[in-house]
Structures are given as C-alpha cells and as structure tokens.
C-alpha cells in the first residue's frame, strides 16, 4: 500500500479510535554482558568479545550481572513501578542462527518491575502512559547477509554472524494499551519515547542513542470503530528507530488500518517493517502459526530477590527526574511552555545547563543552543549535543558578546570557526581578526562617510525623526563588514548630527 492510496489521516480519525502499545528495548551501558564477563564495547572486531557462555558452548553457564539488575530496578522505580520481591529469568525458546543457545534468557511472567506510569507532555497537556512491565533479557548477535541485493536473508548467498552483541543486557519496557489519544496518538507515542529516552539518560544507565540501536522501539497499533469497547487486530511495526519515525509509523499505520477496514478488509496480525524513505510500512514474514516460545523458568539461574532495603536505597538515590527538572528549570528561567518544549525536543537542556555552569547567563546559553546551534545541527542532520563544540566554548563566545568584544554577527563567525575545527573561540577571533570596532577615531571616518552619502536621511534625523538612524547605522556596519560596535555607531551619528 503506497502512501498515496491511503485514506487521509483526518478521515481515518473520523471513524476510528487508535489504540497503541509500545515496546521499547534499551541496551544497558554496563561494562560487561548480562550473563558473562565479556566487554560490551561498541564497534569492536566481529566475534572478538565472546566467551563460552555468550557463544552458548556446551557446558557453559550464565551468571547474572548485578549492575544490570540494579539498572533495571532504577528504571522500574523511575517509571513508578512496583519492584518484584522475587522473580526469575525464563527461557524463550526458538531457533535462530544469531542466538547461540537457541533460546533467549529473558523474563516471562515474573518481570523485575511492573505496574507503573510515565507522564508525558503533548501540546501543553499531560498524558499518563501506563507501564505494564519492565523486564531484563539478553540481546542477540547480528547476522550480516552477504550477496543478494537487499541485505536481507532472502536472496543472500551466505550470512556472516557476529556474536559481540550477543548477551548485552537489555531492558524491555512495555506499555499498557494507550487509548483515547485520538488524533494526538502519533505525538503521544513520540513524546513517550522521547520522555523515556530522557529518563534513561538521566538515570545514567544507557546513552539510549537510537541511531546506534541502543534504544529500539516496536510500535503496536490497532483501530476500533468509535464507541466500541473491543480492540481491533493489531499490527506490530518493528525497530522504529528515531523519534520522528515513531510518529510517522503510527500515523501511517492508522491510515493503513483505516483504509483496509473501510474497504471491508481485515487486518492481519503480523510484524511490519518501517521504511524511513517514504514513511510507509510493509509486511514482514507471515507466520503460518503463532510462535510458541515454550517459556519456562531458567534452571541455570537462581531467582532475583532484591531486598526491600536495597530497593529503598536505590529509590532514595534516584537522580532528579526529567519532568521534575524541567518544571524547576522552566520556573527558574521564566520561559513559557512552548519554549521549554522546544528545548526538550531539541535535546539541549543538558548542554544549556553545562553552558550556564561554564559561566554564561541563562538567557544567552538558551539563545545560542536553541537558535544558532540547533540550526547548524539541523543542517548537518545530527543531534545538537553531538556538534563539535563544547559548552565551555559556547560560554566563552557568550562572554565575548557580553563584554562587547563581539557582536552577534561576529559571534556566529566565531562559532563557524570552532565548528570547522579552527580551535578555541579566542583563537578563532585572533586568526580571523574578528573584533568589534568601537574606537571613535576608527569609526569616525565611516560615520562621516555614511552621513555624506545619505544626506536626505541625515536631514530627517536632524529634523527630529530619530528612528531613521537605523539606516545610517546599517550603512556603517556594512562598510565595516559588521565589525563596528552598533551602539557606539548610533551614538556617534546622533552626536555628529547634533541630536543627542
């Protein structure tokens, strides 16, 4: 189904209520894997971070990574969940070459955390997304399908297996059905994933970089005719791996489901792939029968029984949660909801705070990160925080503006220089000769020239129309290539014209 043959989004929502379910996998940033001592370092030589346990060698046994359990509990607590007093791992049995034991050690009916919620902001209103569970499991390896055109297993000549990722700790966070969002559903989904990402980062348990697969989202969607209780059949769109994609995938699926249902068709319960290029989804492999994973408690591991004292200790040491921090900062900075939301969406709160810590005024720090730097990041298609400029460097630029040594225009050129790798702001200023000229003798000639060249405007000003001075200031700025101190230029012009 192409995007063009779909029913419009508005029409779809006239008739149907969307119901969503989101499953987010987070790779924990622990130093070692879930059940063995292998490193979790990203980008190592294939199959260089493996051992008998994560290769599923005969006889090898798992041992639970205590740091991963701690991270899971902290995530659970931050999501307002109950923490199990006693829970077990379970084996999820299915055959796949990138899973060496041919079962995944996961949790089934005894998750470490359950029954929680996460509040998210959508268009100025708070949405409570209820969490069903958060459980621990291990990641699989990676298959690389060689030959063939698509990089998919179908049509490939052969496959290569890399088990470095195999056994990396994952936390899977599953929401309860999200109902009643109506046309806001795609935004709720996106806001939920964004908020969850902030939370995971604030906890320091993962960098949660979606582009690296450290955080992966599966989006379930079903529609039901308005006014009906029963849920419709759902589709599960796998690996939707950016915030924008989450929104688009939900939106597309709403339209696709509505189109099928309105045409009298039926929705098949299936997994679907999301395509970044056109925002569509296509069906994955159709399974003839429902997969039976034959879950049973993992006999090689003892139950996890976190003591209540430990859980309370972890609760007491949770960092300030993103939503609370946002409320506090918004009050401190006195900004409106819209501006606050813009900063959250751009992911710049942390760098703004770091810039303030480095000595910048809050207003200046916000202005640079949300304005100029966000624009540069957009141009480059990267996240703002990953731009090659530090909070300290931005603070220095702000300080130079503050002291009048740079104006905004020159400051932007300094930022250009820093981003281009020309060194610290002061070095860029020096190398490029970017100094505001406020020396009267240097400016005098330019001012005289401007007055002479714009005699008519000068007369108007003399005649009392002071607001016309801007045109003359502009002319001076032009001849000085932006390096003049605009305020001083204005003073000089008015002085010369005897208006001051």
């Amino acid at each position, binding site marked *: 189904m192409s995007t063009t043959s779909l029913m419009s989004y508005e029409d779809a929502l006239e008739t149907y209520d969307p119901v969503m379910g989101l499953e987010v996998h987070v790779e924990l940033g622990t130093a070692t894997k879930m059940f063995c001592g292998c490193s979790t370092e990203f980008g190592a030589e294939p199959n260089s971070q493996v051992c*008998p346990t994560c290769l599923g*060698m005969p006889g*090898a046994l*798992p041992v639970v990574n205590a740091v991963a359990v701690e991270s899971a509990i902290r995530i659970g607590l931050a999501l307002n969940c109950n923490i199990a007093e006693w829970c077990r791992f379970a084996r999820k*049995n299915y055959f796949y*070459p990138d899973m060496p034991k041919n079962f995944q050690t996961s949790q089934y009916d005894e998750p470490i955390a359950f029954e929680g919620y996460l509040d998210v902001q959508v268009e100025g209103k708070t949405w409570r997304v209820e969490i069903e569970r958060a459980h621990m499991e291990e990641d699989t390896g990676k298959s690389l399908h060689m030959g063939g055109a698509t990089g998919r297993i179908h049509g490939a000549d052969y496959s290569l297996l890399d088990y470095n990722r195999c056994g990396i700790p994952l936390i899977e966070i599953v929401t309860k059905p999200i109902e009643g969002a109506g046309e806001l559903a795609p935004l709720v989904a996106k806001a939920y994933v964004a908020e969850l990402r902030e939370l995971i980062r604030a906890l320091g348990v993962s960098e949660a970089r979606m582009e690296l697969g450290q955080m992966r989202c599966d989006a379930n969607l079903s529609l039901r005719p308005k006014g009906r209780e029963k849920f419709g059949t759902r589709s599960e769109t796998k690996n939707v791996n950016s915030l924008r994609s989450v929104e688009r995938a939900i939106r597309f699926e709403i339209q696709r489901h509505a189109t099928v249902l309105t045409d009298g068709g039926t929705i098949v319960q299936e997994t679907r792939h999301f395509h970044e290029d056109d925002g569509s989804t296509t069906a994955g492999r159709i399974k003839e029968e429902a997969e*039976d994973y*034959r*879950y*049973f408690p993992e006999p090689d591991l003892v139950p996890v029984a976190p003591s209540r004292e430990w859980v309370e200790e972890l609760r007491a040491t949770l960092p300030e949660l993103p939503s609370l921090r946002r409320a506090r900062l918004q009050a401190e900075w006195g900004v409106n909801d819209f501006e606050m939301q813009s900063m959250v969406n751009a992911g710049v709160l942390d760098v703004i705070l770091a810039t303030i810590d480095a000595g910048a005024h809050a207003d200046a720090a916000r202005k640079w990160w949300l304005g100029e730097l966000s624009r540069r990041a957009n141009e480059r298609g990267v996240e703002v925080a990953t731009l090659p400029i530090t909070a300290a460097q931005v603070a220095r630029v702000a300080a130079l503006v503050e002291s009048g040594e740079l104006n905004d225009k020159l400051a932007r050129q300094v930022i250009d220089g820093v981003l281009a790798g020309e060194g610290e702001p002061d070095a860029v200023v020096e190398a490029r000769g970017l100094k505001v000229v406020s020396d009267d003798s240097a400016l005098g000639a330019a001012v005289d020239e401007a007055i002479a060249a714009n005699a008519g405007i000068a007369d108007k000003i003399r005649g009392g129309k002071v607001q016309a001075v801007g045109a003359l200031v502009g002319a001076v700025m032009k001849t000085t290539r932006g390096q003049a101190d605009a305020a001083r230029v204005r003073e000089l012009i008015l002085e010369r014209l005897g208006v001051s």
Partner: protein
Amino acid sequence: MTETIRWTAAETASAIADGKVTAVEVAQAHLDRIEAVDAKVHAFLHVDADGALAAAKAVDDARARGDRLGPLAGVPLALKDVFTTKGVPTTCGSKMLDGWKPPYDATLTRRLKDAGVVILGKTNMDEFAMGSSTENSAYGPTGNPWDPSRVPGGSGGGSAAAIASFQAPLAIGTDTGGSIRQPAALTGTVGVKPTYGGVSRYGLVAFSSSLDQGGPCARTVLDAALLHEAIAGHDPLDSTSIDAPVPNVVEAARSGSVKGLRIGVVKEFAGEGYQAGVLARFAEAVELLRELGAEIVEISCPNFTYAMPAYYLIAPSEASSNLARFDAMRYGLRVGDDGEHSAEEVMSLTREAGFGAEVKRRIMLGTYALSSGYYDAYYGQAQKVRTLITRDFEAAFGQVDVLVSPTTPTTAFPIGERADDPMAMYLADLCTIPSNLAGNAAMSLPCGLADEDGLPVGLQIIAPAMADDRLYRVGAAVEAAYLSRWGAPLLDRAPAL
C-alpha cells in the same frame, strides 16, 4: 605392576608421596591395563595417554622439588565424557559432538588438574546422559566387567566399568536420575550423588540443569570421599552452586559408624518389579545396620510413586531447551552445508543426523510438555509433584538421620534386553530419581551378590541436602562390616577379564 592397579586411590596417593612408586609408573600401569582389557569392556571413548603421562610427570616433578602433594596427587581418574576438557575431545556419547575439542576446562576438570589427579581419558555414556545402560552411546555399548554381555548401567556406565575393571581407581560421573548410583550398584562399586549445588556444573554439558549433579565413583567409600572433597565447593561461575563450606566427608569416611543413628527404610521402594535377590540382600543390609547399632524405622513417602512421571516431564523439558544449541552453527557436526541448503535446513539436517533415537524421543517429549496449552498440565504439575516429594523427604528427615533402599530394583540386565522398551529401561531409576528431584545427597555401595545371577546389588543411602557427610559415615561402617564378613572386597569375586 599388577598390584598397582588394584590399589585404592588413598593407597596409590601415599605410595607416590612416599616415593614407593612414581606417578608416571602408576599412570603407565593403568594405560597398560586399558590397553589390555578395554577392548572387552569399552569403558573409554578417548584415552589421553600423552596428557596423562604429562600430568603424572608434573606430580613427580613437584615431589622432586619437595612440594607438598595433595591427597590425590598422581592418582589416575576416568572422566565421564560429559565434562569439558580443554583441547581434549568431549563428545557426550553423541555423533553431534564427534571431534569437538572444547576451548575451556570445566570447573571440575580444573579442580582435578589442580589436585594433581591424572586424567586418563574420557568414558563412555548414554548419549547426553540419557539412559540407564550406556547402550544409547553413539559409539557402542560398554560391557559390565562382571559379565561383558550385560550392561554396566547408565548413563555413566563407562566410568563405573572403568573402576570395576581396574582401569582406574577413580572416576567421575554425573547423576540426573541415578546415572552415578545405578551403574555403581550394577558394577559393585561406590557412587555418590552429592547435594545439588555441591559440585559445580560449569563445563558439565547439560542434560537437565535442575537435576544434573557431578560426583565421585570409586571402589571404596574413603576414595569416594577424597574425590568428593577435591571437586566440591562453591564456584562463582555456577549460580546454582552452594556458597557454604563442604561437609567434612573425608573425616566422616574415616570414622564410619551408625551407632545411635535412626535409619529409615522407605516402604515404597519394594514390591512389584523388584528382583528377589535384590530384596534379600537389602533385607540383610538393614539387619546389618541394626546389628551395628542403628535404630531402624519404617518410613512412608507416598509421593515417591509420582517421582518417575514427574522426572520424565521435567528432565526432557529442560533437555529440549538445553540441546537446542546443537545447531551446526559454531561447533560439532554439520550436515548439508553444500551451498544448496539454507541455515535453517542445515540445522534441521544436522539434528536429524546427529541425535540418536532416545535423545530425539526426549526432545519431543519435552517440547510437547512445554507447549502452550500443555505447560500447566505437564511441566507445571510435575513441578508440584517435585515440591511434594521434597516435603516427603523433609518429613522423613524429621524422623530419621538417613534413609536406605535398594539402589536399583534389579541387577545388571543383558545388553539389548530393554533397548526397545523405554518404560522397562526407565524403571531402572525408580529408587534413585526422588533424590534428584529433591536435590539431596545419596550414595550407592555394594551389599553383596544376588543369589539368582551372582551379580552385584547396591545399597542406597540418602541424606538431607548438605549432610553429605552422613552418607560417608554410614557407608564406611557398612563397608567395613561387609569387608570383615566377606574377608575381601566384593570386586575380588568378579571373574577375570
């Protein structure tokens, strides 16, 4: 050197320590014995002569340097082929692992090496430890040294046969439903299943993770205790290993006594299916215990009746998952890798070709028992039975110090007799299975020969979890009493090979 191979492990170790013989000489004597008789017994799947002689030489060198030798330094041992040995083939009696050389040592293997034990080679077993006769080995059956046309029991028939035929004074077995104790009974040797979690399972190729337990096989109670001490103790690589001091089994074996003990006779271990000669020897053993000063109490464990069906749901369920890893992707057999077949087909072809009939039967049983819709009725129910059996034991151990029973309902049966009748074969483990389900400790030691066939009968002693020392205290007393009654060890009556 004929004498050397008949020494106990304790005698061997002190002879080496005292310089009466070198470890290399002892190892060579056993290698010669293997050479001479194993064609008839087929206890070994792989003999590592070079490795054994090198290990023996290391012990001799250590002694020459004046190092203190451990209590088993230089003693040869036959290792069940289910424990990984770095660089030495480990097949689990299966075609699936033909030629596989593990990249790592099991914790048990490592501990044996650290103790200076000389590993002679790897012993035959039912494929992946599934069986009670060693006939399910993909490499052919093992013969019982008492009568090579009969089975030595299983799955650890190779280990039991090796020590019964003096090819090694010590061996290692694993006991999931009786695979150490039942072969011990059928070969007239001593076998101990330690408390679950007492000996590390790291490197033990899993059959049923919640039941498997490695343990010692020997010709005397003291030798078993020495070996038990060498391999037991907490292992951080095995989460289910118990982090507590090992019961003092060697001390218990040296001070055998039953005086003042209350000993329970389990009522349910008798009746139909039990051979008359087995029951007669058992009755005598109970009488002996009474004479030695024990108080005999009849105990009922009503839920033991359900042990067998529960076991045949739990063990295959876990096995179906444990054996899923044999998929031709990383090690072992690979069938159909001709560029024409997909990975999925290669997995399927390999499993079809690599597993024997009994393994397939259990994988199917287990897969079915865990299936959605059947889980509660089968696996779930079996776990409840397991709890009930554990409670029966708890109630029993509230009244008595140890329990006793025949180890097996019958003596060694002819090779081939039960091969086509899985149910008859499964009955061989009737008396041993409850201890695996409950995770407690149990021993089998010889209590004579059955009148009707002249074959060994085993006496089983069962102790509470982490009270393994009681097995040795009682076992040593029984062993000493029989030795004085018989005038010589039972194995001396085995026909020459």
